[in-house]
C-alpha cells in the first residue's frame, strides 16, 4: 500500500512504502541545521568549487585503491575474512545468514538461563533485527550485557523506563527476503519459553529471514507473536 506525500513529484507514484521514512533518527540533533534555501546550480557549484587539502588526499587514496584492485587482484582470503564481520553488509549471503542465525540462537539460549531477564519486544522491520529485553534488576541486566557483548561483539544499550525496569536493546543488520512458496504464518499468544521455542524453530528451519517477525508483551505478562511471510520487497 502506498503512502501519499504531496511533497514529491507529481505523476505516477511508485509504491514507495519500503523506502518512505517520515522520521529519521538523526532528526533531533540535526534540526537546528535544517535551512531551506535556494541551492546554486550544478555548473555554478563546479566553477565556484575550490579543492581543499582533504580533497587531494581523498583523490590520492582513490587512485591508490583503483590501482590496487586493477593491478593486484584481491586474494580470496581477504574477501572471506571481511564476511566474518557481522556489520559488514546488509546483504545476507549464505555464510552471513548462518552466522546471524547462530548468534540469534545463542542469544536466545543464553536468555533461557536468565531468570530475571525477559523479552520486551522483537521487530524485524526496517532492515534490523531489533531485540529488546527487560529486568527490574540493573546488576543482572548489566552483567548479561557484558556477557553478550564479549561473546558476540554486538552493540548494546541500557535504558530505564517509567516502570523502574531496565531495558537492554540491540540491533543486528537484517534483510527480509520474499518467499513466494512459503506460507508460514504465525499468530499466537504464550509465555516467554513458548516464544523462544517458536523463534528457535523458525531459525532451525531457516525461515526467519523470509518474513516479518513481531513480538510484544501485554499487560498480563503474556506475549503476542506474529510472523508473516514477506511479499513486500
Amino acid at each position, binding site marked *: *500500500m*502506498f*503512502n*501519499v*506525500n*504531496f*511533497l*514529491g513529484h*507529481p*505523476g*505516477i*507514484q511508485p*509504491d514507495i*512504502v519500503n523506502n*518512505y*521514512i*517520515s*522520521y*529519521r*533518527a538523526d*532528526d*533531533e540533533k540535526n*534540526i*537546528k541545521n*535544517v*535551512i*531551506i*534555501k535556494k541551492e546554486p546550480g550544478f555548473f555554478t557549484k563546479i566553477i565556484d568549487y575550490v579543492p581543499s587539502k582533504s580533497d587531494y588526499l581523498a583523490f590520492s587514496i582513490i587512485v591508490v585503491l583503483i590501482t590496487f584492485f586493477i593491478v593486484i587482484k584481491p586474494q580470496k582470503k581477504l574477501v572471506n575474512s571481511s564476511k566474518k564481520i557481522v556489520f559488514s553488509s546488509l546483504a545476507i549471503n549464505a555464510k552471513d545468514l548462518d552466522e546471524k542465525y547462530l548468534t540469534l540462537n545463542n542469544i536466545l539460549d543464553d536468555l533461557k538461563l536468565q531468570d530475571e531477564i525477559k523479552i520486551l*519486544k522483537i*521487530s524485524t*522491520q*526496517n532492515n534490523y533485527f*531489533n531485540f529488546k529485553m527487560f529486568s527490574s534488576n540493573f546488576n543482572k541486566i548489566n552483567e548479561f550485557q557484558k556477557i553478550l557483548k564479549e561473546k558476540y561483539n554486538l552493540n548494546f*544499550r541500557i*535504558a*530505564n*523506563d*517509567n516502570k523502574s525496569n531496565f*531495558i537492554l536493546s540491540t540491533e543486528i543488520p537484517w534483510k527480509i527476503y520474499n518467499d513466494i512458496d512459503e506460507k508460514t504464518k504465525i499468530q499466537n499468544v504464550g509465555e516467554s519459553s513458548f516464544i523462544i521455542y517458536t523463534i528457535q524453530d523458525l531459525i532451525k528451519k531457516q525461515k526467519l529471514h523470509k518474513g*516479518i517477525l*513481531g513480538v510484544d508483551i501485554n499487560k498480563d505478562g503474556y506475549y503476542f507473536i*506474529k510472523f*508473516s511471510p514477506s*511479499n*513486500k520487497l
Partner: protein
Amino acid sequence: MISISQDKKTFYYIHWVPSESGPLILTYGKETLKANTDSNQVFYDILDTIRIKTNNVSSIYSMTIDSNMVSFSETQVDKSFDHFDVIDWFHKKTIGNIQDGIDETFHYSFSKNQNKYLNMHFRSHIKKKMSLFAQDNNSEIRNIGLGIFSAEVTARCILNADYNDSYAILQIGKECEALIIHGNELSSYVRFSIKNKKYEIIKNYGDINNSKKLIKEIELLKNKKNLTIKTVDHLYFYKKQGKFSIVKQLIDNDKTNISPINIFSHISHNNKSINIQDGLLFAETGCSLWGIDV
C-alpha cells in the same frame, strides 16, 4: 516532530519526540481557524499558531490535509498500452500541461487486476505556503499527507494493519469514507452518507463491489443486525468532529477484527489521559510515526 491533521476548519496536532521506550507525545491539542482568516494564508497561519503553542523555534512538521482540499478522478488504462504514456496523454488532453497548471496531479495505482489509477489533483499553492513557513522559521516540512490515507499509514505503523491479508479503514463523520486494501494493494476508496437509516454511496473509486459489500456490513452493524465484518480480515476505524452513535457501538463491540485507531493507547504521553472518542480525532497525525519502532 509536530504532526498536524486537518478536519475542515479545525487542526489537530501532536508534538512528539523519540525516547528510549519509543515515541513520547509531549503535547497535543487542536486549533480552529479564525473566521477572518485569508483562505490563501490558512496553512501558513495554522503552522505558525501551532509553532507558538508548542514553543518551537525550529522543527520538523508533518501535515495531513482534509480530503476536501483535493479533487479526485479515476483513469482506466487498457493492458495493451503503456500506462505512463496513456496517463500523460489523458492528463494533457483533459487538464493541460502540468508545468503551466496550478494543480499537481498524483496518480496512485489500484490493485493490479483493475488496471486503474486514482488521480489526486492537489493545489500547488498549499505546498508553496508551507514551504514559505518552513523558510521563515528555519524548519522543515517532511510530509503532506491526505485524510484517510494518513490514517491508513497510522494503522500500519501502530496496529500492524498490513499483517492482515485484507483490511479496511473507516472514517466516520457527517460524510463517511472508507479505504479497502487487499494483499497490500488499494482495492477501493469510497465516500458515503446515511440517508433514512441507509448508507448510500456518494462517490466510489476502484472496485465498487467490494465497497458495496463493506458498506452493507457497516449498515447492518449500525442497525445491530450483524456484529461482524467479513468482507475484510480487519476493520480499523476513527472519527471526525461530531457525535455519531456508530462510534460507541464499534468501541463497545468486542469482536476481535474491529479496532479503533487511537494513537494514545499505543504511544506514551506526558499529559492526562484522553478518552477514546477524543483520541480517535488524532488518528491521522500518527502517520508521522512511519519508519520508527512504535
